[in-house]
């Protein structure tokens, strides 16, 4: 995932620098915290202190994002965060260029419950992503008259998924929402794929496996177990439209590409010297994809399923404004979403 973000950002820097029509030239300063949560703050500080860079693209987990915010505040920097997350944050130092729950989870449930039913099994990693996604899912499902048959968590990295699989086999839900991450998720998806081969009640047609953050980045470790998985996101490989006609490897790549090109557009809009503008002024009156109030972005919302090794669109719900606190009555092109109340 971090490689995809880096690829997208570097491709965008090349594109901006090659664009004769843009009076902006970027140089990149790179630091790799290697996934160590304690290294993000110091390395972000190093970038802002030792170079003229004021905008940082990066971070994968919410933990790492929260780690860099104090450094951004102290040294007047901005983070462009290009990964899906669980919402309920609107830092004035961060721009969120990937989806939050009204752009992934809620549309996914809004599609899945009428299509498959309201009896749901929830899994997650013991981490804010799993906890918050499942909390919101449970609330949405119960309010829709559905029932949560089980909700199980694993520590990050744990792969003992047998109990989850057993409970799914016994409770026979209409669909499963998977918010496990990393190795736990791969182990779980492989075990569920194996179950579907022996028990026809658990094929993708009868009991699909849904997630809010699955992208093409995870195809290699999943192999055949990726087949039939359903995900929501702003982009899937081969679907042009978002960020122009470029074919990205995944939405992570597209979201970091979009972060850099949007920054270039804002700098060009305000003219020379605008690299020193406070973020609020940089965003003011400039239009574009970023909502100046919440720093979240207008994104396509697409629900897609892995078929023959690639995502195929099930439903394209058009452009949806990010609503991190679920407090605005934002709709989608397909079905107006209720604010969960």
């Amino acid at each position: 995932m971090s490689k995809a973000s880096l690829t997208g950002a570097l491709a965008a820097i090349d594109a901006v620098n090659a664009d004769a029509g843009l009076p902006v030239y970027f140089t990149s300063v790179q630091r790799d915290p290697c996934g160590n949560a304690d290294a993000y703050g110091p390395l972000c500080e190093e970038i802002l202190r030792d170079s003229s860079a004021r905008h940082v693209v990066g971070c994968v987990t919410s933990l790492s994002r929260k780690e860099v915010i104090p450094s951004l505040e102290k040294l007047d920097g901005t983070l462009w965060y290009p990964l899906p997350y669980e919402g309920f944050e609107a830092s004035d130092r961060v721009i969120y260029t990937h989806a939050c729950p009204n752009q992934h989870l809620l549309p996914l449930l809004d599609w899945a419950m009428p299509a498959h039913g309201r009896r749901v099994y929830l899994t997650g990693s013991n981490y804010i992503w799993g906890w918050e996604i499942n909390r919101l899912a449970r609330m949405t499902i119960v309010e829709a008259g559905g029932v949560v048959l089980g909700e199980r968590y694993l520590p990050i990295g744990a792969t003992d998924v047998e109990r989850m699989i057993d409970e799914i086999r016994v409770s026979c839900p209409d669909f499963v929402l998977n918010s496990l991450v990393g190795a736990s998720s791969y182990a779980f998806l492989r075990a569920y794929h194996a179950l579907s081969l022996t028990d026809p009640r658990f094929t993708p047609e009868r009991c699909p496996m849904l997630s809010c953050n699955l992208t093409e980045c995870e195809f290699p470790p999943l192999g055949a177990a990726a087949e039939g998985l359903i995900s929501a996101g702003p982009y899937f490989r081969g679907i042009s439209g978002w960020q122009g006609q470029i074919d990205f490897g995944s939405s992570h790549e597209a979201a970091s590409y979009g972060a850099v090109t949007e920054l270039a557009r804002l700098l060009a809009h305000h003219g020379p010297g605008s690299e020193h503008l406070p973020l609020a002024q940089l965003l003011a009156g400039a239009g574009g994809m970023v909502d100046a109030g919440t720093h979240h972005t207008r994104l396509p919302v697409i629900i897609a399923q892995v078929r023959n090794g690639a995502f195929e669109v099930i439903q394209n719900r058009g452009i949806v404004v990010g609503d991190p606190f679920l407090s605005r009555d934002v709709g989608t092109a397909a079905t107006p979403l209720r604010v969960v109340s």
Partner: protein
Amino acid sequence: MKRQVRSKYLGGARALILHRPHLNVLALARQLRAIGLVVDEAWPELGAQALATDFIFFDADMGYDGQFPWPAGEAPMPMIAMIGSEAPGRIEWSLQIGAHAQLLKPITGSGVYSAVLIARDAFDRQRAQAAEIADLRRRLDGRRAVVRAVMLLMQMGKSEADAYGQLRQMAMSWQISFEDAALRVVARYAAEGGDDQRNRG
């Protein structure tokens, strides 16, 4: 009556910031609007709009008694103190005013959402407890009336069991609570000018 916040996620709720114009107010207002609230500012007078707001953020540093149109500690909405100086006197004043949560200056975006949710929860619990205490007090007073009513009926020659039986009968036929029936008996007996028992407990 105060308008209730309908949305669990605060969309459209109103917040009033009682603080002189300042960067802290800008940062707070920005974050509250991002969360979805409608924000008003006031200083130093709260104004009538205070009664229609759902949350009040007040300056603990320069705030003073008399800024709020209700008795200290009885705000009809959650109150959040904006604290710069952590001097004990200022914290004590914030508590007297009835702070349900606090934000430390300088105010940035972080901490605002949790302060709103914690204040709302503390306010709801405080209000539920106050209602429960009032109900318990009413029932306690009722038990005193029952004892007095039974004693009055016993003075008229009834046994204790018969006195209780008569009270129960009255409550049923008047379709009121046992305690309220006892209050009526006590009041009627006193009004009829019998042996005045009002000072006996």
